[in-house]
């Protein structure tokens, strides 16, 4: 019987020969990830439920990244990090990446990939809705709440409903004025924010397999914006090369069967797509950059797990090189590794960081920063009636701070072009 790759991975993790969409199964979890917002309450529930002698099912499989509320004076936010620190030292957690030390990594989903926790064929749960990002590695990954995470922490197991799959095929090559962000905004425009509820979004096609791992993660990251359980791209040589550089853990490559059943299939001619935006206040409020060009902006933002990877900054730098921004523009590398690459990678001999600084951008430290608004002193936070263009993944009311602000989501190319003009701009004007 034929299965999709999501079904194959979940069948293996539930010790079954095959699984059917809609069926509830108990899964063995390979990695549990948590962070400073949801880690402390998860630990609290785990202690409450398993008592003073609570045991972590497998310490090596628990990974903790403080990343959300890091560079703030907010005392309660700092207390959360302090709670993680105490927990990590009390239980001797090997995979804790403390802020203020050289182990600090930045945004969890990107750090999971960089540190070799994203392994094809495995099952990863995290206390963050964008845990679906890891699916770029041909694995099953999804977000859960604190109670489910506490359950996993104590047992290594969790129930899940086998999702139906939706398939998105991008035929043809990606033109230089498009990035993965344009593709996923197009998908969201088609299926809307609940079109993928309880489903797996599977991406394939020439344009997808031509993408770097950075760019593939942009696609799977925003699967949750369609309400999906997970996003997934079958692993190939690009995936294998990335994984092998970072870990020697074994991996397994699963492919969807040719006659596997999908709830729906979408096929796009990639060359016909245009630079995309999601207008306020929803990621599915699709339009082309051209249609909304001229919209006045007060701020531009390049960052987050969606739009703060090296590939995003290379795209932004291509356009910002030799230009000046006309609205405050924030460059927030997702991880400390990306931050380091901004200094090492260059275009025509000028480092990416220098290109941004020359253009008048503010380069911030790695963390989630204003992607989710955060405490009042968060860098880049939207205030009052601001109109922001951002490479992040959500523009729900108030997501980046003020609920009166308006946020347009776009690719790093579009954000960079718009930052220069101070109004939304089609990046083709600069390429």
């Amino acid at each position: 019987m034929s299965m999709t790759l999501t079904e194959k991975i979940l069948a293996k993790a539930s010790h079954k020969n095959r699984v059917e969409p809609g069926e509830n199964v108990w899964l063995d979890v390979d990695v549990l990830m948590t962070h400073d917002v949801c880690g402390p309450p998860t630990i609290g529930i785990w202690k409450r439920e398993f008592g003073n002698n609570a045991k972590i099912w497998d310490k090596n499989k628990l990974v903790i990244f403080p990343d959300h509320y890091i560079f703030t004076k907010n005392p309660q936010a700092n207390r959360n990090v302090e709670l993680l620190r105490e927990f990590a030292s009390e239980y001797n957690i090997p995979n804790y990446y403390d802020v203020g030390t050289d182990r600090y990594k930045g945004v969890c989903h990107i750090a999971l990939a960089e540190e070799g926790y994203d392994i094809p064929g495995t099952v990863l749960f995290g206390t963050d809705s964008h845990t679906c990002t890891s699916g770029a590695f041909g694995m099953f990954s999804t977000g859960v709440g604190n109670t489910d995470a506490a359950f996993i922490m104590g047992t290594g197991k969790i129930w899940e409903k086998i999702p139906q799959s939706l398939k998105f095929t991008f035929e043809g090559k990606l033109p230089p004025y498009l990035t993965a962000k344009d593709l996923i905004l197009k998908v969201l425009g088609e299926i809307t924010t609940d079109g993928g509820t309880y489903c797996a979004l599977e991406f394939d096609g020439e344009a997808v397999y031509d993408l770097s791992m950075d760019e593939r993660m942009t696609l799977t990251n925003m699967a949750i914006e369609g309400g999906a359980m997970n996003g997934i791209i079958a692993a190939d040589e690009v995936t294998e090369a990335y994984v092998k550089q970072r870990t020697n853990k074994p991996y397994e490559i699963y492919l969807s069967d040719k006659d596997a059943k999908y709830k729906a299939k979408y096929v796009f001619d990639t060359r016909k797509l245009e630079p995309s935006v999601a207008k306020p206040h929803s990621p599915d409020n699709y339009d082309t950059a051209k249609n909304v060009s001229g919209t006045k902006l007060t701020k531009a933002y390049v960052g987050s797990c969606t739009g703060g990877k090296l590939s995003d900054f290379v795209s932004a730098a291509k356009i910002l090189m030799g230009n000046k921004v006309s609205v405050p523009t924030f460059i927030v590398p997702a991880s400390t590794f990306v931050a380091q690459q901004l200094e090492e990678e260059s275009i025509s001999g000028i480092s990416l960081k220098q290109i941004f600084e020359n253009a008048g951008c503010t380069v911030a430290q790695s963390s989630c920063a204003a992607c989710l608004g955060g405490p009042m002193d968060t860098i880049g936070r939207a205030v009052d009636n601001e109109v922001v263009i951002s490479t992040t993944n959500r523009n729900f009311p108030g997501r980046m701070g003020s609920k009166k602000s308006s946020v347009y989501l776009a690719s790093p190319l579009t954000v960079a072009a718009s930052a220069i003009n101070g109004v939304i701009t089609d990046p083709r004007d600069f390429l």
Partner: protein
Amino acid sequence: MEKTIKGKAFVLGNNVDTDQIIPAEHLVYSLTDSEEKKKYGHFAFSGVPSPQSGLPNGNVAFINGENYASEFNIIIGGANFGCGSSREHAPFALEIAGVKAIIAESYARIFFRNSVDGGFLLPYETPSKLSDKIKTGDELELHVDTNLLKDLTSGENFSLRPLGDILPIIEAGDIFKYARQSGMLE
């Protein structure tokens, strides 16, 4: 589990995401300290834009003044309730504010799971749109055994979708109690 839930309706539209239920800046309070956790109740639904807060007219405060509990304890939602961030603080905040049940056209997966596995509130689905039939402030009665919602103010009755295969977890109380009852956990 309560078999009959009585209370006043608070009506919201589609796509109420978890940032609207509890804005990210408030995720820092303790969830265990009995005083501090009341803040979650106080800020529940504080991210909902005023025109959409308490339909059909909007501009209804879910929480009055300095309170942490709401006069409304049954939420009527549209499609895709609880989308967005995975924060379990969202159903938690609603529970602190006194919400017993939500009746929506559909839910985002993580919010739905959190509500059930954490035992915070009942997430009922309605086969038809109720947000234009029930008004904020209507007196409601929810009968869990028969999946029936009565609007005492308008006199209308609505059948809800049965809770289905999550019912055992709801009846047990939460996922831990369920796992203990079924022998998975000691």
